[in-house]
């Protein structure tokens, strides 16, 4: 089963986004192209059929897009945040010069 956690500093960013937005927030995890697999925080998003809820961080549900579900079945992932003066992801934290990233412990190793 996929385990999702969030670092305190990333949690603080989620709180900040929540205080400035009015709509429901959702984290989705999917990949592709220049960003690779990454967490995205969206307001009023439409979930893909087959997306699986794998946890909740700071009251925000976290979903894996369908293709990621089997790949991350045993993964322990942590949503962290890095400084990125401007990021192209349409994820909400990019407004503050920040970007959520996915850290993980595949089979026990740490990154």
């Amino acid at each position, binding site marked *: 089963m996929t385990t999702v956690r969030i670092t305190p500093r990333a949690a603080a960013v989620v709180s900040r986004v929540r205080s400035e937005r009015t709509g429901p927030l959702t984290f989705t995890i999917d990949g*592709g192209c220049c960003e690779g697999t990454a967490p995205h925080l969206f307001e009023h998003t439409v979930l893909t059929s087959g997306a699986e809820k794998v946890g909740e961080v700071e009251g925000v549900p976290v979903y894996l897009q369908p*293709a990621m579900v089997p790949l991350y079945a045993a993964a322990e992932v942590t949503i962290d945040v890095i400084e990125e*003066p*401007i*990021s192209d*992801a*349409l994820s909400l*934290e*990019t407004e503050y010069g920040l970007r959520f990233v996915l850290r993980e412990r595949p089979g026990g190793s740490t*990154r």
Partner: protein
Amino acid sequence: MKEFGLFINGQWEAAKGGKTAPTINPATEEPWATVAVGDREDVRRAVAAAMKAHDSGVWRNKSPQERGEILQRVASAVFDRLDELAAAEAQDGGGTLRKAMSMDVPGTAATFMHFGQYICGDEYQAMLQEEYDEVMPIPSKNLVVREPIGVCAGITPWNFPIIMAAWKIAPALAAGNCVVIKPASVTPVTTLMLADICTQAGVPAGVVNVVNGPGGTVGEELAAHPDIGKVAFTGSTEIGRRIMQLGAGTVKKVTLELGGKSPNIILPDANLDTAALGALFGTFLHQGQICESGTRVLVHESIHDAFMEKMIAGIQRIQIGDTMDMATTLGPLVNAAQRDTVEKYVALGHEQGAKCVAGGRRPTEMPKGYYYTPTIFDEVDNRMRIAQEEIFGPVVSVIRYRDEDEAVRIANDSVYGLGGAVWSANKDHAVAIARRIETGTVWINDYHMINLRFPFGGYKQSGVGRELGKWGLAEYHQIKHIHVGENTPPEGKVYLQLLLN
């Protein structure tokens, strides 16, 4: 340090909020230019300028020949500034100067030249207006005409900044549209320079606008703005999905060119020397930061060992080094986060049991810069994460297959469907296999040979719509059917009987 503003309505402008950000040279990890960072208000200004230019008719009312000549002038102007643009491209994104001089900048000029010439030709005239005479259900002449959409947004990635900008701007302008481009935030410089070049070459003010800024504000505003008629996006699948959602509000036309995990199939009768080098080219060009890279090399078991020997030996011919040295063929990754991602997947490859036979580390000879060695994993199972997730770095997975059915099954076992290749002495047989592969492009005995005359885009979650060629140009048009009926007395309109006795 060089400074760049936003490019709005034919002029350099500061961002309304006054923000700027440095852009980092990935080879030195040092800032080399400062660029204005826009917000939603800057997008609104740029869209208003584009809308005004569109409504005025200053661009769309020009004949295709007039527009085509201006686009060809842009192509010449890009070539005139080859050295300057190539140096900027290499410093901004970490690509080699060798690639920028021979591919990025000439490819940009060629894109403008191609579309500029195409719209001056007969084939485009025929596409702009088709005529059909009909007798049923009522006699009529029928015109099918193509018109510009209006204001189109282009959102581009950091791997090929100037070419990606050209792929968005040139066909949009050819079709008579105005554009607002959001370049990738880590590589905005050459797109801004290109907009300036367009204006100097005679593209009227307001037709090409560039707003640099974060995806969460500038990107979202562009994707949702009611005056934008079309969004063309190149980037990640998850952001592509979000752009479709945001465009749904005003039912925008959307073209998306997204992720890939493309299969590169080596048949037993292939020229193994060429196929091995082609596999290296297909995965390590631009440090593997190409969406249609052939990151899954499928090798028939009978040739596996010989092929691997040649592929590993070929790595010696890849020269890591200073991006500004023309001898260098492999530069750094775009930033530290991208190298972190590569390192994570290399660790995952080891943990899931793949065998690292080359690379797998940072190069000791390059202490500065986000460099990573070309890395080959052998004995990969297609369900491993390194074979399913896009790494976007110099990491290739080699997978064995026993027969062609298995090769095709593995090739298609991916949510993506962007590119791929088949290497074989029997071209007809290779084409038959290519037809079974669920991707938008398949090369036979070549790789990365994207051609401006032919469509490029993805099956499945690799995208929607096509770029390039007449198929890509068609995406920048509205299609209108005009029915021209006869001016007859009422008896001539038999359909009236459906309602009237």
